[in-house]
């Protein structure tokens, strides 16, 4: 009797009907950022007494692995070139790439390495896909300094269909994320007393990523 129960459990778990944290999505899914799915963008906001300004980079690249069986164990790496960051003021952009600021010559990329997901909350799960929120925990590297960082995430995972195939092969993913970085933490000190007057002490990042599970 006991053996039968164990066998029944194994059959249920191994049958195609079992569902994971991501509903019908199973196993590890490698999601690569793709412009055909959507333009990934990292917007950054600086609030200082003299001027509030916004800029962005639209040259994000990277991939991450969503582990549907254990979402907490999702990993990945997203980066963008410092020189792709624009603010609408070319002189300010040039300063931003310089040695006193982000030092693009020696540290050409800003990176976020995802180590795990926490506080996962499934918002919606049906035949079309899954939506969930989570906290991404990992290491943020700016100017060659890597510091632990946490980012709030909202993920929309859309299962492949005739409609999605018109845009890209595979399942499509959109991620909304925001977090802030303190410039001092990454040894971005600027010249004189610019930080705090012309540039905010911390920069708010609002990131939107688009990718698909096809490679």
């Amino acid at each position, binding site marked *: 009797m006991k053996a039968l129960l164990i066998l029944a459990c194994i059959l249920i778990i191994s049958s195609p009907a079992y569902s994971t944290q991501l509903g019908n999505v199973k196993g590890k899914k490698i999601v690569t950022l793709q412009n055909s799915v*959507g333009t990934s963008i990292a917007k950054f906001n600086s609030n200082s007494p003299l001027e509030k300004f916004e800029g962005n980079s639209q040259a994000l690249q990277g991939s991450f692995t969503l582990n549907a069986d254990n979402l907490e164990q999702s990993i990945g790496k997203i980066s963008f070139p410092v020189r792709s960051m624009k603010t*609408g*003021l*070319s*002189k*300010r952009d040039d300063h931003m790439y310089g040695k006193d600021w982000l030092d693009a010559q020696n540290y050409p990329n800003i990176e976020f390495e995802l180590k795990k997901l926490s506080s996962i909350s499934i918002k919606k799960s049906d035949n079309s896909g899954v939506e969930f929120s989570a906290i991404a925990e990992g290491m943020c590297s700016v100017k060659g300094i890597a510091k632990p960082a946490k980012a709030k995430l909202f993920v*929309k995972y859309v299962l492949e269909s005739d409609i*999605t195939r018109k845009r890209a092969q595979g399942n*499509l993913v*959109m991620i909304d994320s925001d977090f802030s970085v303190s410039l001092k933490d990454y040894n971005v000190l600027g010249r004189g007393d610019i930080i705090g007057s012309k540039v905010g002490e911390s920069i708010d990042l609002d990131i939107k990523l688009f990718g698909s599970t096809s490679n």
Partner: protein
Amino acid sequence: MNLWRIIQIFSTIVIVTLSIFWIMDDFQVFTKDKTEKITIVKDEIFGTDIEKREWIENFQLGLLPDDPVHPYRSLAFPSLICIALILFAQNRIHSQENTRP
């Protein structure tokens, strides 16, 4: 008309014109050379609004210059010059009136 009076009128016109441009350019603190064009598009697959952003070349006059090497690219610098000219011209007009017999 007195030359100094013409300089005063011209300087005032310059200040007013630059101020109108500055107001039209949304009271920018620093002069900008690009504007971000934002288009909102409905994304049917993800069921949300997506922003399409692109930088387009567009000069916007700011109160302060975009580059300290080019101070004239601002409202403040030419306005200060014009105010100085108006005051100097006023001084000259006053001197001329006092020296008249």
